[in-house]
């Protein structure tokens, strides 16, 4: 407030505090708060908002963290065990010291939720629509969860006697304990999702018509083992990885003392490790190319070797007899492709397990007229709809899918959103993505030095003979430490730097959890705040823009 005074010579201003002087008028550029897309989020196939759930975990609010996480992915305890975590490969902290152990914290949150019994909320309003989901693998479970959250009635039909798809009949127990799988499935069922087990569907359109479903989601996976022709004697024992891993779920398959696994992918590794646990003295992986060409992840190969699994690369199986096999040595040609050498060797083998990949089962698909296919897989559009109106698909069965649990979960989410829009007669439009939060935008000076916490690994001897879980979890203090290693790339984490460094006190602090605002009456546009923001959440724009 200014009071009128008699002004001395050359004084033009009223008596006042300097607040009357709006220095914001000097500005030619203005700082603006933004949210950017951190590389972890951008890379997560399930579209998790990792930076956001880590933000909650950092302050020890694990339930808020878990709730944020499960907005996108309903299976954190599973993800924390089986996801190949491409997020960590993209994490900006990797350029500082080591990537944040995102996957380990995810597992901690997932386990904490199971321990505390945190449940999903039931939808507030029922839409009255009903969706049929075929298959209870991660794709089907994710679609069901997201559809249910949006208020739709959901029925999952599953051919097997238990839910989970390849998470149960593929991924071995020592990597994914079944009580974890069961609990995360149950939590989805508890939202009011109907789960019909032991129900194989061949004609899904007939079932849809008979029961009056408004839309269909297919998540039938790729469960048929690929075979290769190997001349074999009558007494030879040749089987495939899918069968072995399925059998081991309910009984003890007999593979003998010397087991040969043919293939170089993750499935081959899982079978070889399973064979060891079933008592095989020797479990040998035969692969036609070199170790570095194996599609299996490095860490899995490493764990397998630690458990005594042997690798024989540059070899093909040419014949299987009783108690032994013949392999031919290969050599890489100039282009790096393996070529036969004509050199043979005999290996003792009680059984041969083929792990050469999987195909999609065709019966159900053949019942849908004019479905656009690509080889054995179904072609979907940008929002996961097949060429048949109202029939959506996701996961391993979809053409071009990367065939991981996480991709399947992402497909299920996307399809659910598309189905929700389709049911309203609309086309699903994904929200536009924020600009990327690149490493160059960080001011790394402000982050304390800290190294990555390593998850404990089960004692080698124990894991050779049992199906106990191999990789342990973080305890509370480790998880908190790990979460706090996050740089919060591109998203304000309320460090107060802008509030502190503004020479004009032109940053308004809105209070805990509410972030900040600029007072453009006084901001002169120096850009100090943007320069000193650790995470790059402020941009400077030209004023006349």
């Amino acid at each position, binding site marked *: 407030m200014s009071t009128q005074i008699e002004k001395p010579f050359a004084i033009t201003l009223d008596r006042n505090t300097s607040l009357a002087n709006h220095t914001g008028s000097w500005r030619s550029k203005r700082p603006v708060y933004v949210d950017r897309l951190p590389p972890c989020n951008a890379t997560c196939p399930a579209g998790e908002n990792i930076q956001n759930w880590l933000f909650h975990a950092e302050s020890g609010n694990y339930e808020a963290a878990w709730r944020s996480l499960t907005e996108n992915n309903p299976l954190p305890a599973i993800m924390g065990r089986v996801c190949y975590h491409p997020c960590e490969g993209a994490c900006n902290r990797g350029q500082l010291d080591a990537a944040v152990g995102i996957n380990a914290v995810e597992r901690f949150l997932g386990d904490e939720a199971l321990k505390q019994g945190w449940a999903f909320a039931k939808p507030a309003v029922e839409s009255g629509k009903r969706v049929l989901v075929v298959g209870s693998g991660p794709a089907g479970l994710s679609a069901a969860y997201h559809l249910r959250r949006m208020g739709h009635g959901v029925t999952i039909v599953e051919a097997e006697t238990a839910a989970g798809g390849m998470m149960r009949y593929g991924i071995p127990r020592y990597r994914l304990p079944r009580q974890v799988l069961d609990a995360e499935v149950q939590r989805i069922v508890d939202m009011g999702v109907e789960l019909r087990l032991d129900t194989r569907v061949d004609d899904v359109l007939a079932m849809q018509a008979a029961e009056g479903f408004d839309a269909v989601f297919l998540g039938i996976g790729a469960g048929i083992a690929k075979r290769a022709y190997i001349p074999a004697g009558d007494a030879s024992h040749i089987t495939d990885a899918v069968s072995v891993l399925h059998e081991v779920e309910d009984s003890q398959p007999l593979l003998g003392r010397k087991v040969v696994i043919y293939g170089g992918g993750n499935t081959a590794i899982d079978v070889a490790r399973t064979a060891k646990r079933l008592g095989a003295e020797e479990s040998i992986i035969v692969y036609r190319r070199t170790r570095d060409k194996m599609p299996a992840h490095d860490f899995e190969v490493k764990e397998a070797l630690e458990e005594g699994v042997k690798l024989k690369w540059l070899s093909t199986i040419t014949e299987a007899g009783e108690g032994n096999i013949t392999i031919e040595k290969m050599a890489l040609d100039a282009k790096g492709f393996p070529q036969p050498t004509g050199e043979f060797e005999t290996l003792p083998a009680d059984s041969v397990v083929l792990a050469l990949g999987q195909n999609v089962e065709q019966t159900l698909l053949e019942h849908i007229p004019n479905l656009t296919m690509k080889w054995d897989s179904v072609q979907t559009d940008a929002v996961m709809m097949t060429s048949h109106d109202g029939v959506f698909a996701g996961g391993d069965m979809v053409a071009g899918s990367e065939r991981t649990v996480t991709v399947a979960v992402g497909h299920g989410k996307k399809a659910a959103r598309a189905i929700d829009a389709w049911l309203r007669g609309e086309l699903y439009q994904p929200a536009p993505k924020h600009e990327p939060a690149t490493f160059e935008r960080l001011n790394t000076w402000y*982050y304390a030095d800290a190294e990555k916490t390593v998850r404990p690994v089960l004692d080698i001897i124990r894991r050779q003979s049992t199906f106990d879980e191999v990789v342990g979890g973080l305890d509370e203090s480790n998880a908190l430490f790990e979460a706090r290693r996050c740089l919060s790339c591109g998203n304000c984490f309320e*460090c107060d730097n802008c509030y502190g460094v503004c020479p004009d006190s032109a940053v308004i602090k809105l209070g805990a959890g509410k972030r900040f605002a600029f007072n453009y009456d006084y901001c002169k546009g120096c850009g100090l705040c943007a320069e000193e923001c650790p995470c790059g959440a402020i941009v400077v724009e030209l004023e006349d823009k």
Partner: protein
Amino acid sequence: METTIKFYQTDTFTVGNRLLSEAERSVQAGMQRTNALNSGHRACQGCGEALGARFAVDAAMRAAGNDLIACNATGCLEVFSTPYPESSWQLPWIHSLFGNTAAVATGVAAAQRVKGTKTRVLAQGGDGGTTDIGFGCLSGMFERNDDVLYICYDNEAYMNTGVQRSSATPPAARTATTVPVGQHPNGNVFGKGKSVPLIAMAHEIPYVATASVADLRDLEAKVTKAMSIHGARYIHIHVPCPLGWGADPAHTIKLARLAIESGLFPVFEAEHGEITGHRAIREQVPVEDYLKLQKRFAHLFRNPKQVEVIAQLQAIADRNIRRFKLLEKRGAAV
């Protein structure tokens, strides 16, 4: 067993940290900070002196329970904050002359003693007002151990009158009075100038410290410590000036940080004439990193690059590093 988490993501490097308890947070992070130098002042964009003054006086206000009087020498800080009849100051504040602030503060402190109040007294000025024209009054205030905290905002020249050299201007820097001319255009001469913090120590006053706008927590801790002591105290704060240094206003803190990390501006503290702590360099950088962001040193990088002059400046930094043990992690006593 309970394990204490010692890791706080950004630790105390950032102004605030939501992971720390309220008591552990900085004064500047608080919504209830005084904002002693309020919005609407006429300092340039990105002014380091305006920032340093708010950091220091807010901390002093908190330490004094808001019972504080400030005396201000002529200079930018006075001119941009208080063009009659406006003021940005949120505390009792008095301006007299360019050279007599220390003496005025002595008088104000004496008045408080006579009146029997507990009001604390702060004096502040620029490097010109402190190391040059006000130096006699300052030395007297030290020598008498008057109960005043004197803060010098060192922007390394007489900025308010158009960037003239002071005895705190670094060698080689261009100012209006040290224009680089001739065959070897080197700017301000080497081997002149003075360190008032070291001279203050020679008076053996209870507390002397240097600080920087690039290390808020260290600055606040030092002001708080100084306020806990009675008698003559001196804090010398490094405050980059975008205008006088020819720097990007957004680089004010970055420059102050590079000055510390290169060793050119040693951050330390002393009690009764003895050094008791230092702020260790965290990520050492060559002086060039600091120099090349400023137009006042641009003549060193023009063809031909003044390699020897830069080496001389590096030698100054290296000497500081040795002298104040800046690479020893032992760290500050605050």
